[in-house]
C-alpha cells in the first residue's frame, strides 16, 4: 500500500566482475532470465512495494542501462513527481574528473530533494521477488538505526560474501568479509533500509572524511556505533557474483519451484517491452527443459537452456546447458554445450563450442564465431 520510502539502486559493484558480460555494460544491465536485466528484479520489488521514486547510481558504462530503463514507463516510474532518476557521476563544469567525491555530492542532492521518510538501498547483484513493507515495519518497531536483509545461504555463493553475527535481539555484532571459517550462516542480501535523513548525515560525514567508498558495506561497518537489525528473508535469493554464479543462477530457473517464487507470486517482474512475435517451434524441433522467450525460432534441439528474445536455432543444431542472449543467430549443424552467448552473437554453420559446468565458454556481444 502506501510506503513512505524511496529507493536507491547501486548499478555497479567494484567487487564484482562478470568478465565479458560486464565489459560492455553495468552489472545491473546484464541480461538475466530470458527477458530481463538483473536490475528488473530489484526495481520491480521496489515498485511492487509502492515506492514511487527510485534513483539508480551508476559509475560508467551506463549506456546500455539507460537504453533499458528509458523514462521508466515499463515500471510505471514515468511520473510528474519523482519517478525514475539515473544518477551518472556528477561532473560539474569546472572539473572533468570525479576525484573529489563529486558523484557523492550528486547523490546527496538527489536524496535531499526527496521528501520520503525512509530509503531502501540495494545492490544490483541479486535476483529476488519480494516487497519491502514488512522490512520497513521492522525498522520502525525495533528501534534500530538500520535494517539489513540476510538469508541462511552461508558462504556457498563465492566472493563478495558478507556474513553477520548477531545478538539475541538480532542486532549485528560483527560483519565478516569472505570468512573462511564462520560460526554464522547469515549471509547478507545487500538490501538495507534506514531513515533518509540519517543517510544524508552519513554521506555528508563520509564526504568530509574524504571517504569515497559509499555502498551497502560501508554502512554495515557502522555496526559498532549504530544499531543494525538483521532481517531474515526466507524466500528465494539468487546472487550473481561472477560468471560461475551467473551460470548456476540461470540454470536454477529451470526448476519449477524457483520460477514459482520468482515469477508467479502475484507481484510481477517488470521489464522493457520489446513487441517481438510469439516464439515459433518448428516441425523438427526438439525442446526439453528450456525457458524460451518471444521472437525465438526453434528448428533444432534445445535442452537445459535459457533463450532470450529473438534467438534463432537452425536445423540440426543442438544447444545444451547454455544461456543464449537476445538476437543470437545459431546456424545449421552447430553443437553448443555449456556456453553463454552474449547479445547479437552469430554462430556460423558447423561450429562446435563445448565448455564445462564449472567453466562455461563465454562469447562476446556481437561476436561472429
Amino acid at each position: 500500500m502506501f510506503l513512505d520510502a524511496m529507493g536507491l539502486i547501486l548499478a555497479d559493484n567494484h567487487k564484482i566482475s562478470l568478465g565479458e558480460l560486464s565489459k560492455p555494460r553495468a552489472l545491473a544491465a546484464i541480461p538475466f532470465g530470458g527477458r530481463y536485466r538483473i536490475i528488473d528484479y530489484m526495481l520491480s520489488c521496489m515498485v511492487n512495494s509502492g515506492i514511487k521514486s527510485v534513483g539508480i547510481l551508476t559509475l560508467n558504462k551506463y549506456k546500455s542501462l539507460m537504453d533499458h530503463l528509458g523514462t521508466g514507463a515499463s515500471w510505471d516510474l514515468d511520473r510528474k513527481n519523482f519517478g525514475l532518476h539515473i544518477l551518472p557521476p556528477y561532473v560539474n563544469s569546472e572539473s572533468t574528473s570525479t576525484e573529489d567525491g563529486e558523484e557523492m555530492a550528486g547523490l546527496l542532492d538527489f536524496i535531499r530533494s526527496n521528501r520520503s521518510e525512509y530509503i531502501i538501498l540495494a545492490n544490483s547483484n541479486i535476483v529476488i521477488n519480494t516487497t519491502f513493507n514488512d522490512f520497513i515495519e521492522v525498522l520502525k518497531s525495533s528501534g534500530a538505526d538500520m535494517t539489513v536483509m540476510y538469508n541462511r545461504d552461508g558462504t556457498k555463493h563465492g566472493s563478495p560474501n558478507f556474513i553477520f553475527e548477531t545478538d539475541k535481539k538480532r542486532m549485528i555484532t560483527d560483519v565478516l568479509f569472505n570468512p573462511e571459517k564462520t560460526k554464522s550462516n547469515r549471509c547478507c542480501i545487500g538490501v538495507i533500509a534506514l531513515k533518509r535523513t540519517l543517510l544524508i548525515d552519513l554521506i555528508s560525514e563520509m564526504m568530509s572524511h574524504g571517504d569515497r567508498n559509499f555502498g551497502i558495506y560501508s554502512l554495515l561497518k557502522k555496526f559498532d556505533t549504530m544499531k543494525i537489525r538483521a532481517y531474515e528473508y526466507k524466500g528465494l535469493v539468487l546472487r550473481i557474483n561472477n560468471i560461475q554464479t551467473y551460470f548456476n543462477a540461470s540454470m536454477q530457473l529451470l526448476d519449477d519451484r524457483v520460477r514459482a517464487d520468482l515469477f508467479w507470486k502475484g507481484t510481477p517482474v517488470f521489464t522493457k517491452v520489446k513487441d517481438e512475435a510469439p516464439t515459433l517451434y518448428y516441425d523438427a524441433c526438439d525442446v526439453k527443459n528450456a525457458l524460451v522467450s518471444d521472437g525465438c525460432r526453434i528448428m533444432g534441439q534445445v535442452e537445459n537452456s535459457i533463450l532470450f528474445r529473438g534467438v534463432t536455432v537452425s536445423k540440426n543444431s543442438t544447444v545444451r546447458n547454455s544461456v543464449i542472449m537476445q538476437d543470437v543467430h545459431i546456424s545449421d549443424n552447430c553443437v553448443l554445450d555449456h556456453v553463454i552467448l552474449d547479445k547479437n552473437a552469430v554462430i556460423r554453420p558447423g561450429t562446435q563450442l563445448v565448455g564445462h559446468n564449472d567453466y562455461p565458454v563465454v562469447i562476446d556481444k556481437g561476436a561472429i564465431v
Partner: protein
Amino acid sequence: MAKAEIVAMILAGGQGSRLGVLTKNIAKPAVPFGSRYRIIDFPLSNCSNSGIETVGVLSQYQPLALNTYVGNGHPWDLDRNNGGAFILPPYLRSGKSDWYKGTANAIFQNRDFLDDCGAKLIIVLSGDHIYKMNYAKMIREHVDRGADATLAVIEVPWEETSRFGILDTGPGDEITAFIEKPKKAKSNLASMGVYVFSWPVLREILVEDEENPNSDNDFGKDIVPLMLSKSMHLIAYRFSGYWKDVGTIASLWECNMDLLDRPEELNLIDRNWRIYSRNPIKPSNFISEDATVSMSAMTDGCQVYGTVQHSVLSDSVTVEKGAVVIDSVLLPGVTVQSGAYLDKCIVGFGTIIGPNVKAGASVSGESPYINTRICSEGIVVIEKGLKIKENAIIPANSQVDCDIKTNESENVIEETFRV
C-alpha cells in the same frame, strides 16, 4: 483539441455474433489472436507504423474489455499530446440520440470529433481483419489521383467471390459498382473494409444518407452506391499480401493455423513493421523435460509439461503432464489438466480443462452442445471461465456455453468463474 489532417476511425462496435461464445462478453476486436495479440492490434499497429497518430476507436457492444485494452494507446505509441487514441462510444444528446445504427452512422455521430480535429482525410478501418498494410501509400494514391473515396481491394479466388463485397472497376481501377456478396461476380476484387475519404465530401454524403429513412447507414451497402450515383470519383487501391477476415470460428481458427503453416506470409518477425500489443508481464515460456512441442506458437507465461502439436497458445497457458493439445487455439490463462486430449479446439480465457477430458474434431458422439450454426469443420469452441468436468466427452462441432441447459448426465461444466 488536437489537430490532425488525417484521422483513422476503427469500427470496433460490432458484436461478431458468428464467433459465438468467444464474443459473449467482449467485442470482436478484443478477441485474442495469434498467441500474443488481439485482433485490434493489427489496425492499431498499422496506423502507428503508417504514421497516423490520431485514431478513434468506435466501441459499442460489450466495450469494457476493449476500452481497457486500448486504454491510453501507449502500447501502439498512440499516447500523444497532439492526437493519440480516442475511445468513441455512442452517447446521449439533448436532442435525438441513438446507438450506432450502422458503420456510416457511427462516423456520422462522430462528425463533431472529426470537425474539431480539422480532419481533411479520414481512413475508416474495421476491427476484424488480420493484415499488415501501409495506409500512407494508399492515402498518397488517394491524394495524387484526386479521388473522393479510395477503397482497398484484394484479389480473391473466383469461387469465393460470393462471400465478399465485390467491386467492379473500369480503366484505371475506377470503381463502377459495389455488389455485396454477388451470386455471379464480374470481378474478383473484394473490398477489404479499408476506406479513405476526403472528409468534407463524406460529411455531406453522410448527412444526406441520414435523411433517407430506408438506408441501413452502411458504407458498403449505402454510402458507396450513393457516391457512385452522384458520379463521384471512386478508385480501387490494390493490395497484395496476407489479409484475412476472422469473422467466423472457422476463419479465426484457419488464420491462427496460417501463422504455423505459412509464417512467412504475415511475417510477424519483421522488425520494420511490428505488431504491438499490451504486454501480459509474465516470464518467458517454459518447456519441461517431459514435454513434446512441435509446429506451435507460444508466448510469455506458457508452461508446457505435456504434448503440444500444431497449436497456438496465448499467454499464461499451462499444459500439464500427459495432456495432449493438437491443432488448437488456447486463449490466455487456459489450463489443460493431466490426461486431457484436445484437437481442433478453441478454448476461452482461463478455462480449466479437467483431467482426461476428450474434446475435438476426432471425438464422436451426441451432445446438446453441438452447434453447426457457429462451429464447422469439426472445430470445438469452449467458453471462457469454465471448469470442464473430469472425463467429459465433447464431440466435434460443439460449442460449450454455460447458458445451455442440459440434464445432469450430459452437462460437462463443473463450475463457472469470473475471469
